[in-house]
């Protein structure tokens, strides 16, 4: 399923603050606005340090600034968590397994059928 969000909202937030691409580039510690333009055109994803710098500049959490990318990553993680929940079916039943299953089910974001242990 496609995200209803854009990959990022960097241009929106920059314009809201009335900053130029060169000014944001300076704040990010990069040389020119070209890189900023690439991020805003969704042609390139910034690294972790740059993403955190964006959070500091725009005062908004990363998951909001990169909402589309976050949605995509969240879906991928949820899909992997579902597979791990199914793996717990083969684990020895107990408190630890139940706790693990609970955590993974929450990450998966869906109800996973309880295992039928004999």
């Amino acid at each position, binding site marked *: 399923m*496609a995200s209803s969000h854009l990959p990022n909202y960097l241009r929106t937030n920059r*314009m809201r603050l009335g900053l130029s691409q060169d000014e944001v580039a300076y704040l990010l510690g990069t040389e020119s606005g070209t890189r900023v333009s690439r991020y805003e055109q969704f042609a390139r994803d910034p690294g972790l340090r740059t993403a955190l710098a964006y959070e500091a500049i725009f005062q908004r959490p990363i998951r909001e600034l990169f909402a589309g990318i976050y949605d995509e990553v969240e879906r991928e993680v949820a899909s992997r968590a579902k597979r791990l929940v199914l793996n717990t079916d083969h684990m020895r039943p107990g408190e630890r397994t139940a706790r693990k299953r609970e955590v993974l089910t929450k990450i998966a974001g869906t109800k996973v059928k309880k295992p039928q242990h004999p």
Partner: protein
Amino acid sequence: MTKTIRQNNNLILAIALSSSGFGFAVLEGERTLVDWGVKSVTGDKNAWILKQIEKMIAHYQPGVLVLHDAAAKGSRRGPRIRKLTKEIVAMAASWKLKVTLLSREHVMQAFFIDGKGTKYTIAKVLAGRFPEELGPRLPRKRRAWEGEDSRMSIFDAVALAFAKRLWRKDR
């Protein structure tokens, strides 16, 4: 040739054509103004404008494109804008993108119960709704002998996007 995009039905791209270029707005849902601005050009305006709008469609992949209906009854748009509107509609069709043409009356009815208001009143309403985004762009009210500030086309575009959103909800 038909081009395809993964359309985001939550996004509206609105274009307000003007004598010197166009104003644009990208509205996500009802509360987020994602992009807005004005682009001016000299020379072969229509070809350049068409190219710019096509770039925006490819970039934002909106669910709908909204334009002023230049052929609506009572419209005073010139032949260049009428021709350009048709060209944009044809170009959007090549992207399989829905196009909505709204008349001035449609826009006014979306903002005012009696359908009576001015472009400037709408601009003030929008600047109040989006103070960070549009507040600094609101020009002072023009006097009768002054030409229109080019920034007004941004407000025209946002008004189109909003009218489309409200139109869809009401009808």
